[in-house]
């Protein structure tokens, strides 16, 4: 087990120092220092209520922290809302799979960043270009989809998660943040999504992964950060730890 140590900030894609967040009288987390290295999969683990999700939400602008500093790409970047974080290059895959059932796969992949052709003052959708690029995005991550014209409503949970991740990665994001990406999935679908996360890493996309599946975290991540009762208590290299050690860190039994 190692103490929370500092990595040179040039290696960090996203980092925070002394971050705190309270909701009324309830403390979500206090004085958290955290870094996610460029090109790595960084996992945040902890028990329910340890503050993982709230920390992530603060980092991507959903919540505004009460104190502390956030650095993205080496510069202080407090994001006022998720849109600012997205514009800076952080894409979040939401726990509730933010897809629109009635739209097609291609429409979902390009939602709110549609490709348009300008004809004078009028901007019309370039649906053909979006369909073609959607196919390219899916095949780059080896996601097999019968048709990009299919409505999302008819897809399985794993397929939907794959599209969410594909959308996040396809925007040229520098960092993809995933909160429990396999929580609602079956065994085979979980394996597929894990394969997808590995492919993201191969393509040098940095990933922050929130999970409480220790085995999954050790399989997928390079660095693991452990939260307990609103504090960041430890960070370890995934290759140098064991499942038992992680359990001890998360529960505080060590």
């Amino acid at each position, binding site marked *: 087990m190692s103490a929370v140590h500092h990595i040179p900030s040039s290696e960090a894609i996203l980092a925070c120092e002394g971050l705190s967040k309270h909701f009324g009288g309830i403390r979500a987390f206090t004085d958290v220092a955290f870094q996610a290295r460029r090109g790595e999969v960084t996992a945040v683990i902890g028990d329910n209520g340890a503050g993982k999700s709230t920390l992530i939400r603060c980092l991507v602008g959903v919540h505004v922290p009460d104190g502390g500093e956030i650095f993205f790409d080496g510069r202080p970047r407090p994001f006022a809302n998720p849109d600012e974080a997205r514009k800076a290059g952080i894409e979040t895959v939401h726990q509730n799979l933010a897809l629109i059932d009635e739209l097609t796969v291609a429409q979902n992949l390009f939602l709110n960043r549609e490709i348009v052709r300008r004809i004078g003052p009028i901007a019309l959708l370039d649906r053909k270009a979006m369909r073609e690029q959607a196919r390219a995005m899916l095949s780059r991550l080896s996601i097999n989809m019968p048709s990009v014209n299919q409505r999302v409503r008819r897809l399985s949970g794993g397929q939907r998660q794959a599209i969410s991740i594909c959308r996040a990665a396809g925007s040229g994001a520098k960092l993809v943040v995933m909160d429990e990406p396999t929580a609602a999935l079956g065994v085979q679908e979980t394996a597929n999504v894990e*394969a997808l996360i590995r492919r993201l890493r191969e393509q040098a996309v940095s990933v922050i992964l929130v999970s409480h599946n220790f085995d999954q975290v050790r399989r997928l991540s390079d660095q693991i950060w452990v939260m307990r009762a609103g504090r960041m208590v430890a960070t370890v290299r995934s290759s140098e730890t064991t499942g038992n050690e992680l359990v001890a860190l998360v529960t505080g039994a060590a």
Partner: protein
Amino acid sequence: MSTPEQNAPVHTAGAAEESRPSLSALLLDPSFWADWASVVGLVGLVIVFGIAQPVFLSIANLQALLLAAAILVVLSIGQTFVVATAGIDLSLAAAVMLGAIILGLVYAAGWGIFLACVLAVLATSAVGFLNGVLITAGRIPDFVVTLGTLSGITGLGLILSGGEPTMVGSTFLLKLASGSFGPFGYPVWVAIAAVIVAHIALYHTRFGVHLLATGGQVESAGALGISTNRVKIAAYTISGFCAGIASLLLVARIGSAEPLINTSLLLNSVAAVVLGGVSLFGGRASILGPAIGALMLTALVNGLTLLSVSAFYQPLAVGAIVVLAALIMRYQK
């Protein structure tokens, strides 16, 4: 589409079924009938009425039918935009009345027909905008807000007009009502133009996709950075704008601005939207469907009239067809 050979394909479930189904499979699929309810209904009515009363198929009657349908088509388009956001605009017919009265009063005041038309459309658009703001910023259910504005602008119309109709003897409106270009009267062309513009807006612009996303899953759309409130306000404003266009057509058609609400216009606009396969839960819409639904409802009334069925039976027939359409709609995928 291409898939890379190496790397195990991530997902395979649900493949193959997207290939084009055969015609017989299509005809056996209830969702096909649900999607095309208005077209099937229109064709059915034309066949039945054409056999029962051949006059129905005369060029003159078909032209009259299209002319009579123009106002409802325009209103149904407005209603479609609102329903696509999972809302409803109950103030639509009242807005038509307000537009008509403002047109009449401004024209009677001698400000010219052009300004009268512009102000009428501006007023109804403002009503739509107000609906949208109250629903989004005020966080009041659409049903309550538009019911409130329905009552409010009914009263406003009565106050402004003193309860009296205003004659509008404008040659421009007379020409609009009675003139024609090619096979169709001008109101039909107005309706056709409205259909084309609305279709492009819904299917070929970012606004259209964001509208359907907002109606489909409002939280998800918001999480992706779509300003769903603005989209909703725009939808209600479009609905108000369509009410304004309809009020011009109405005043042109009857030659005066009356402080009367045609409630069947409101009910039929919702009915046309349902017949057109638009989901009342939002997220799924078309423009052609409701337009054909409006044509179908007009054809129903026209045919029953030709068959000398008492006007008392017409609302019954419309009601039965709408409920039937809603039943079929349950099979929509």
